[in-house]
């Protein structure tokens, strides 16, 4: 990290101005070398300076330059921001000029990486920045911003403090066994604390799931036997022809994805190969893939054909999806009814046909109703927002639960403490206060920190 990096910080080609940002020990010098105006090396920190960017004596653009000296900057290094006139050509030319004067083009997220490695922001915050960069909609952006303010870290820190106090009081009792006057932590005390913490953590996880929905969308899988109209429903939802629709059973062998936006929430729709017993190898792979998609899905849309009797394959699909959040679509309701599903007590049934829009509208409304999408947005945004964080929070929750089981089985307190300690460590990993190899791997994966 001894070099100086540069990147265009604003979206290319839009807006009246663009910002080109540099960070590193030579940032000021590099800009100064192609700047006509005041000597930037003598400029005070956190000032804006007017002038022109020149290359080979030729003026490229009229600019305002923010000079921010280490350490009170985003990366804790010297940072210079060039505010130039928007437009692809002049922005790119300024970038190229910086490159020829010794800056290196930044990798994606590298400014954040530097901020993290320089101890300016913690792991959650750095993840939040990546989230902001990648956020697909406004809600996700808000959550990421609130993380950047440290509200998630603070919440986890508070939680860990509670645990720390409990652990400390348990340990005093262990180390001073004969000090009869020390207040003994009874199992009832611990049970009560664990119960409270479990409730808190459970709430955080549940609400975090909603934010995952906001951030990553609802993973929706459409399943059904071949040729019941899955792809047609998908196309209606997407209003574009992405999946191949034919009348020949078994056409969709790949898993097709598309996105729609429902009330600001992304719906990731995955069409699957029709599920049926088959000998075709390619189709078999598709079928297996479909079944595994069901496990991962947030929502399964099972499509049945109104015009045919319930088959063994249909029954198997209904069986395989019965534990999932599920909507049953009875397609082709414009054709005569041969389907009888009265033996299943199915909820969330929507009737459709692909010739009218009515059914598809009902389907969308059903989804909004099922996920309470209207409510999600009104909450505050102190949540865990990525899979790493949520999986750690879940591990912490499980450890708490095990501690509770231990207490209820009257196991010795030093065993229960192991579970509490694990809870403490898992929570620490979320905010990077417990060092673990996984954090580093995460860092390497997201920041391209290579050799």
């Amino acid at each position, binding site marked *: 990290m001894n070099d100086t990096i540069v990147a265009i910080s604003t979206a290319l080609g839009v807006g009246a101005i663009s910002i080109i940002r540099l960070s590193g020990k030579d940032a000021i010098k590099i800009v100064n070398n192609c700047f006509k105006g005041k000597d930037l090396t003598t400029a005070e920190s956190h000032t804006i300076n007017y002038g022109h960017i020149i290359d080979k004596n030729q003026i490229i653009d009229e600019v305002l330059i923010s000079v921010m000296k280490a350490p009170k900057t985003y990366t804790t290094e010297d940072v210079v921001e060039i505010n130039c006139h928007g437009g692809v050509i002049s922005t790119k030319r300024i970038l190229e000029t910086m490159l020829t004067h010794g800056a290196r083009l930044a990798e994606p997220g590298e400014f954040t990486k530097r901020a993290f490695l320089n101890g300016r922001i913690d792991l959650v915050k750095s993840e939040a920045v990546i989230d902001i960069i990648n956020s697909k909609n406004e809600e996700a952006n808000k959550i990421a911003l609130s993380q950047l303010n440290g509200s998630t870290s603070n919440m986890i820190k508070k939680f860990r403090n509670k645990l720390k106090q409990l652990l400390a009081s348990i*340990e005093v009792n*262990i180390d001073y*066994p004969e000090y009869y006057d020390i207040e003994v932590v009874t199992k009832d005390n611990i049970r009560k604390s664990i119960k409270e913490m479990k409730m808190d953590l459970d709430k955080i996880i549940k609400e975090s799931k909603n934010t995952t929905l906001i951030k990553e969308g609802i993973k929706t899988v459409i399943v059904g036997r071949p040729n019941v109209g899955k792809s047609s429903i998908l196309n209606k939802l997407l209003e574009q022809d992405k999946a191949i629709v034919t009348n020949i059973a078994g056409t969709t062998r790949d898993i097709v994805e598309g996105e729609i936006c429902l009330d600001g929430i992304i719906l990731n729709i995955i069409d699957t190969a029709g599920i049926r017993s088959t000998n075709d190898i390619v189709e078999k792979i598709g079928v297996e893939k479909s079944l595994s998609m069901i496990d991962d899905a947030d929502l399964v849309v099972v499509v049945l054909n109104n015009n045919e009797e319930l088959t063994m394959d249909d029954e198997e699909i209904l069986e395989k999806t019965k534990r999932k959040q599920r909507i049953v679509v009875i397609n082709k309701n414009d054709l005569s009814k041969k389907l009888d599903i009265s033996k299943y007590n199915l909820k969330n049934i929507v009737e459709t046909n692909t010739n009218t829009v009515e059914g598809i509208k009902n389907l969308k409304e059903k989804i909004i109703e099922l996920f309470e999408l209207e409510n999600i947005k009104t909450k505050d945004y102190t949540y865990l927002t990525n899979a790493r964080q949520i999986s750690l929070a879940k591990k912490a929750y499980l450890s708490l639960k095990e501690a509770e089981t231990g207490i209820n089985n009257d196991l010795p307190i030093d065993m229960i403490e192991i579970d509490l300690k694990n809870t403490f460590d898992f929570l620490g990993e979320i905010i990077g206060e417990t060092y673990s190899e996984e954090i*580093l791997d995460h860092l390497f994966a997201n920041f391209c920190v290579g*050799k």
Partner: protein
Amino acid sequence: MKYEIIVVGGGHAGCEAALASARKNHKTLLVTSNIKNIADMPCNPSIGGPAKGIVVREIDALGGEMGRNADKGALQTKMLNTKKGPAVQALRFQADKITYPKEMLKTLKTTENLDIKEAMVEKLIVTDGKVIGVELEDGNKIESEAVILTTGTYLKAVILTGSTRKSSGPHGEKESRFLSDNLKELGFTIKRLKTGTPQRIDKNTIDYSKTQEEKGDSVPRTFSFDNIVYKEPKDQIACHLIYTTPKTHEIIKEHLNESSMYGGYVEGVGPRYCPSIEDKVVRFSDKERHQLFLEPESLYYDDIYLQGFSTSMPNEIQDIMVHSLPGLEHAKILKYGYAIEYDAIDSKQLKRSLETKIIENLYTAGQINGTSGYEEAAGQGLIAGINASLKLEGKAPLILKRNESYIGVLIDDLVTKGVKDPYRLLTSRAEYRLLLRNDNADLRLRDYGYQVGLISEKKYKEFTKKKENIKAVIEILKQTRITPKKEINEYIKQIPSTPLKDGISLYDLLKRPEISIENIKHFLNLDYSREELEQVEINAKYEGYIKKANKEAEKMLALEEKKIPEYIDYDKVPNLASEARQKLKEIRPTTIGQASRISGVNPADISILMVYLRRND
């Protein structure tokens, strides 16, 4: 006369160091200022306690002497924390202050390759950064290949009572005046520490009717895995419990400024975990009373140790303080409490082998490294003795890991974190305490003891047999199933436990908290030792938790596997926080794991260090 190893000091660290080195066939000299004080117990008359008791078991497992010797001198034996789980149980013995040193001296004198000399060491002889002998007070020099310093509280010792300061070691012994200056010249950072001891009371002047009797266990206990019981429980003596009174607290508060500590007469930093009675009254002012134990020191004289009443008040105040205690209204004080101040080195200047980083072949152990306690000293002494010997043999040192032993935790803490006040080993210092139990010290460490040559073939065979038996019993219990027959369920109901609904293996039955191995014997004849069966029971009951603890330990070990190059230049690692950089430069950890335990080095610093190392691989 030339020796291979010279041990300076005959306390608990010195005895273990000298015995280990001599038993490993190195010609060893133990130099002490007074042979009569070898293995002396200048403070409490007990060995063991939480964490410390486990250290004694570890010493025995490795082939050290303290466990065996404590068994010989036992006056009362007790397992602590029996109501809690096996992870935190620990033995504590009241040990006879006459018998314990006498037996240790006997052992030293009958050990081959070991000479004892009465003298005061003033200087180390060092050439080219390597110690090659010691110089005595009389100017004589003794050559050696390695030196182990175990000087206890003797370096520039000062005894304090009230405003009186007197240069002296414990019991009015001569202190060592020059050695610490010599160490300073050699480059060691010298710290000033303090510890204290309470009064000794004439047992004939105590009214025991106002005290509460505290007896030992009714089952025989031993520290040593030799399992030789020298004193049956019925012959053991009792301790007695009393509490301080409001009057005691009043007296202390009134005279606080006359104590050496509060009067500002002490420079040294005292132990946080073993506070004086003044400290307790001031710091825990909401407590109405503090408990005190009356502990007999020996069968051969009348001193009763007043545990919990350590003080540096002037003698006349100590009189009225003691007389304010129930049963001690007319007590005669035989020895007054005092504080003692002494020099110690900065333990961060040590390697994990206990060899110093500054002077090659120089090892230090015990209070000189900033610890307190007989057990902590002995554990270090043993490791220093073993490692000095291994070094002379050209072998790699024995470094015990944190998930293997309390001794490992102790040494790692010393060299990684350093000490501010005298370091006492606590159960809570061990992250993996479920693995570091009193009952399994041999299973953890005996292999090492055998490898370094301190465990005989015969003992090792017995140990191997024990391991096989434990395995065999577990297998038998897993294979043997019982069914919900009437007579079986009747037995189970009266234990009391829930009757069976289905068939179950005896091993699974033993997992129930209320079922003990004794209950299992109802179904099966198990002709195995109590210790072997105890292992089976712990295994059955806590298997899941032991696995969890092992999993955690593996994470730590993975970081221990990541070595930091010896000559790394921390100034070249970009972006380390300045505190972290300074600490890393000072301590020079050998692994990422050790680096992560340094206070002031944050996970972000570790990430940065890892990035740097990966890039420079």
